Each structure stands twice: as structure tokens, then as C-alpha cells.
């Protein structure tokens, strides 16, 4: 009797969860099935899992052929961007943003969490207010401002470093707020004990705070990476030289006004989804506490 009701309960649960799985996977399977469609037509005519004559041709095209839409000189194929070059640019911007966000964010959040000092409240409120300011109309002044700062013989605006800095400013307010809340939950006695034992403040920070705050630091890295990986509005506006273009820009450029090469488009989209998904899986066990523990305390 009991065994039977338990079996029934599990059957119901699995039915429910498999239903959820199907609805989660449906759009992803749709992407795959178009990407491997050999005809490279706009859209398939049949709802099939594996279209007839399926091949990885569009993946090969995306990976190894130069992209005709992003070229310094459209007449010369060797000046066009390839997947490899786009990937390097994207990784540079994404990890740059993540690195800036975590280093600058942790440093400022540590000060706000651990020191009582003049201007603390004002500073903290200032960063939180920046979190809520909508940034759409600021791109115009930002364009001018970043154009003023010279980096060697070119404007900071048109470099990947400038782009990473611009993205960092978008992720910093949340990072500082979240990290500060998380640091607050780590007892100060732990550091005090280390200081008494002769450690320097820097040592105490790296040996005690960093390992204990890993979840919040991981979330900061993840959000910074995602910002750099998917943003394309500022990138289109700021970058001039196609050799600096990123994957997100390549994807956006394939969305034509009238037609889109859907097979290659989805092949690129799927390839582009792999790094964030991997990063998500790698950091998954940190995400929950990293995002909520600090938030509760505010």
C-alpha cells in the first residue's frame, strides 16, 4: 500500500519534471535542428528533430570561413574576421570586464564593510543610486568622454580596453552592493585574530576574506563576463576597426533586415552559448549563496 503510493508519487513527479524538461529543451532543439539543416534556407518547412541530410556544414562555415560582413576591406577575404579572432576579442572584453569588476568591486566593498570612516554613508548611497540610473541616454556623452582619453595614438573609446572599462562601470554598483552585504556576514573577529597573529591587512584579506567570500566573488565574475559577452549596442557605436569586433556583434550583424542566414546564424548562436553555460555549471554551487546572502542584509 505504502510502496504503491510512493511509486505513484514518483511517477507523477517524473511526469511533471519530464514535461518541464521538454519545454526547456524545445527551443534549444529547434536551434540545433535549424543549424544542422543542410539547405541553409530561411526556415525549415517541417517540424523535424533531425532534418533530412543533416550535416555540420554550417558549423564548419562559421568556425573556419572568414565572415564576409565584418571586413576592413570587403574585397580582400584575408581582412575579414574569422571565428577565432572574434572569439579572442570577446574573451578579452569579457574576462577584462570580469577582472575589473571583481578587483575594483572587492576593494571598495571591503572598505565599506570593514571601516567606519567619514563619508561612508554618502559613498555607499552614491553607488546604490548609480545602480538605478538608466544609462541609455548616457552613451552620447560617454562617446565624447572616452574619445578624449588617448591611449597611445588612438582614442580609448575605439579600443577593447575602453569597452571593458565602460562595461565595468555598468556592473560595479551591483557588485559593490552585493559584495559588501556578503562581507558583512563574515565575522570581523576572524581577521582580528589573524592580525593579532602578525598577519598584515593584505594577508588577512587574501587568506580569510577571499576564501570565505568565494560565492559572492564568483557571482561578480559571472555577471561581468556575461555583460562583456553579450553587449553589442555600445560596441557597435564605439568600435571602428572590424578587427576588434566581437562575437555578439557578429551575431547581431547576421540579423538582416529582410533575410537572415538562419542555419549559420544558429550555428554561431549555439557556439556562443557554450562558454557562458560552462561558466554557469562551473560556478553553479556558488551562485545561490553568492546572490542571496548579501542581499538579505542589504
Amino acid at each position, binding site marked *: 500500500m505504502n510502496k504503491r503510493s510512493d511509486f505513484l508519487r514518483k511517477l507523477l513527479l517524473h511526469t511533471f519534471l519530464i514535461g518541464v524538461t521538454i519545454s526547456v529543451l524545445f527551443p534549444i532543439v529547434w536551434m540545433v535542428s535549424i543549424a544542422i539543416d543542410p539547405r541553409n534556407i530561411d526556415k*525549415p*518547412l517541417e517540424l523535424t528533430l533531425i532534418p533530412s541530410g543533416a550535416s555540420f556544414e554550417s558549423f564548419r562555415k562559421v568556425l573556419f570561413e572568414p565572415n564576409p560582413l565584418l571586413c576592413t576591406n570587403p574585397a580582400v577575404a584575408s581582412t575579414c574576421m574569422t571565428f577565432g579572432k572574434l572569439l579572442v576579442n570577446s574573451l578579452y572584453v569579457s574576462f577584462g570586464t570580469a577582472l575589473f569588476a571583481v578587483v575594483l568591486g572587492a576593494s571598495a566593498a571591503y572598505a565599506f564593510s570593514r571601516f567606519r570612516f567619514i563619508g561612508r554613508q554618502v559613498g555607499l548611497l552614491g553607488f546604490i543610486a548609480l545602480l*538605478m540610473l538608466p544609462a541609455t541616454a548616457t552613451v552620447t556623452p*560617454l562617446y565624447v*568622454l572616452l574619445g578624449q582619453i588617448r591611449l597611445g595614438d588612438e582614442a580609448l573609446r575605439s579600443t577593447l580596453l575602453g569597452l571593458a572599462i565602460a562595461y565595468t562601470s555598468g556592473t560595479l554598483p551591483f557588485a559593490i552592493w552585493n559584495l559588501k552585504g556578503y562581507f558583512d556576514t563574515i565575522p570581523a573577529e576572524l581577521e582580528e585574530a589573524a592580525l593579532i597573529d602578525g598577519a598584515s591587512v593584505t594577508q588577512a584579506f587574501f587568506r580569510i576574506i577571499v576564501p570565505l567570500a568565494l560565492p559572492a566573488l564568483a557571482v561578480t565574475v559571472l555577471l561581468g563576463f*556575461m555583460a562583456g559577452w553579450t553587449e553589442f549596442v555600445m560596441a557597435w557605436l564605439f568600435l571602428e576597426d572590424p578587427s576588434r569586433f566581437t562575437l555578439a556583434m557578429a551575431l547581431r550583424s547576421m540579423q538582416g533586415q529582410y533575410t537572415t542566414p538562419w542555419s549559420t546564424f544558429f550555428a554561431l548562436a549555439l557556439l556562443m552559448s557554450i562558454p557562458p553555460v560552462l561558466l*554557469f555549471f562551473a560556478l553553479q554551487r556558488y551562485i545561490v549563496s553568492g546572490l*542571496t546572502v548579501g*542581499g*538579505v542584509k542589504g
Partner: protein
Amino acid sequence: MTDTLPKPVQTTPPAGGARRKLFSNTLRAWLYILPAGILMLFITLLPQLYQGWMAFTDYNIQNLRFNLFNPETWERFAPSLVGLENFIRVLTSRLPIENYDFIRLLKFNVGWTVANVVFHVIIGVAIAVALNSKNLSGQRVYRAIFVLPWAIPGLIIAFTWRNMYDRRFGAINQLIGKISDWFDLGINNDIRWLETTTPPAGGSAGLALGLVVLLPLAIFAINALWKSGVPKWLVWLPAAGVVYAAYTLTIMYMGLPFAFWAVWLPNIWLGWPFMTVIATGALQAIPEELYEAARMDGASGWQQFWSITVPLLRAAMVPAIMVGTIWTFNNFNIIFFISEGGPFGRTELLVTQAYKLVFTQRLYGIAAAFSIVVFFVLLVITLIQNRVTQATKAYYE
């Protein structure tokens, strides 16, 4: 023997020492904040101040050559001050663009946020509870699959759904056709999801959404108001406001075209995993002893759920709901790439409108004023949310 021990040393430092400590702390702290501070000053604060100035001018495409750092451009390209005119035009919907109505935009944005967040939480928690049941095989596989909608970049999700809504070749219409064929239902699957201007099922879908989402919320809000310490004889005033808001939003849902449902579904699809992840963490932190004690006292499974699981989940869900609300309120990708705000601007959000004011209409001064108005809307929402959170906290502690 004890009285031979030395007295403990006076530990209170002189007042001058405390002041010196505060001073050195201040120096040290600002040194730590300096790198982030400089970045925010130049990349965010200065452009924001500039935007604040633009909001009071007739800045438009001719003024783009104006460069604060180049005095030669000041004379020729500087915009002229127009006072509060931009703000008045934004709020009273007198802009030289089609389908612009500020009140409608605001109402849609609020209705969109509510319709999404409520479902994110309900679906997210239900799945987390189902996943958390004991001795369930395949838990790890389910968990891995269920984070995918959250992990895949929103941009890509939006493009995919846009493709799926295609009238003839899209997956949605094809799926409806297949299901209709299998069960011989004869459903019309030639739906123009993104262009149709009439509401689906003559508005009854909107009515159902209003009843499912807004009715429980209104009851909850009035109940919280009743217990929040607002004088009882005054409660009817905010309560009437809540009822009025629920009523107008339901009317709005009833009039929304197919495109609303076409952007709502993908946003539900991508939004619940975040809530599931947070709820899973909270569920695993609930000690098993609580349930054992409840069972000893003869509580049923249902009673255990409502008196142990729900109250303890609430603590973790409140900050997640706040984060989720801001994300949904400003969800650019889904609206911008699937419905493009259409048809006739009826699924436009405040953020997508702000983007279009800058990049399509190029009305920079007006866009700046619009952004500042949106900031105040967000501020009000955050303050209300904070209030509600405080109220529910006091209620449960």
C-alpha cells in the same frame, strides 16, 4: 593572594587617539574605494550629469558636434536651454513620434512586470519543491537542464523565439498544427503572432491572466495593509488604490494583442530557473528535524508545506523577487528583438522606448529627460518594494 595581582590597565584611549584612528581609517578606506570611485566618476557620474544637463536643452542631431573639451565647437553647436519643456512633453505625450503615450507605456511596463514575476515565482518554487523530494532519481540531470534558460545569453534566446513565432515556418504554429492534427482538433494554426492587433480569444485570456495574477496579489496586499499598523480607519484608502490598480491592469490585459503573449511566454520560459535555483538553496537549508517534529505532532504533508516550507522560503525569496522585479521591469532583449515594441507600440517598455529615442529618433534632449523620468519611476517602485518587504518581515518575525 588575589589582591597582589596588578589592576587591569586603563584601556580607554585618549580622545585624540580615537580621532586619529578615524582619520587614518578614512584615508585608508578611500584609498580602497579610489579605483572604483575614479571609474564610476568618469564613466557613469559625469555622463549622468551631462545627461541631466541635456534634459533641459533641445539637444538633437545638429548638436552632436558639440564637444565640451573643444571651445571652438561651443559657439556653433551648443544646444539652447529650454527649461522643463522636455519633461512636460514626455509626461503629457506630446512628442513628434508615433504611438507614444507615456501613461500607456507605464501601465504596460507595470502590468508586464507583475504578470512575469508572479509566474516566475510560482513556477520556480513549484519546480524546486518537486526537485527537492527525497530519493528522486535523475535529480542532477534535471538540475543541469533546468539552468539552461538562465545560462544561455538573453540575446540568443530572443532571436530564437522570434524565429519560432514566424507565421509559416515558425515552430510555434507548426507545433499547434501538429497537435491539432494528432487529436483532430481543427485549430487554426495560421496565427500572426507579432502583427495581429486584436486580443486573443476576445480578451478572455487577458481576463484569466488578471484573475490568476492580480486577484491573489490584491488580497495579499490588502491583508498586509490591514496588519501593517496603518490605522484601521485609514486602510480603505490604500486598499481602494490596490483594487483600482488591479482593475485597470485587468482591463489592460484584456486589450493586449497576441504580441504580448508572444513575448510573455519566452520571458516566463527564461525567468523561472533563477527562482528555482534560489528556492532550492533555501529548501536545502531547512533542517529535517522541523518536519520530523511536525510529523510527530500529526501534521499532514500539506500542513507541513504551508507552516514550515512556505514561511522559511519566504525569507530567501524576498530579495530574489526584488532583483527579479528590476530585471523584468528593464528587460530589453525579449521585447526589443521579438515584438520590437509592436504592433503600434503596444508592447513597448520604457527601456525600449528610451533606446529608440536615442538610436532611432535621435531626440537626445528628450531621451535624457525620459531617462530621468524612468529613474524616478524605478525609485518609487524600489521604495514601495522596500516598504512591503519591511512590512512582511515584521509580520513574520
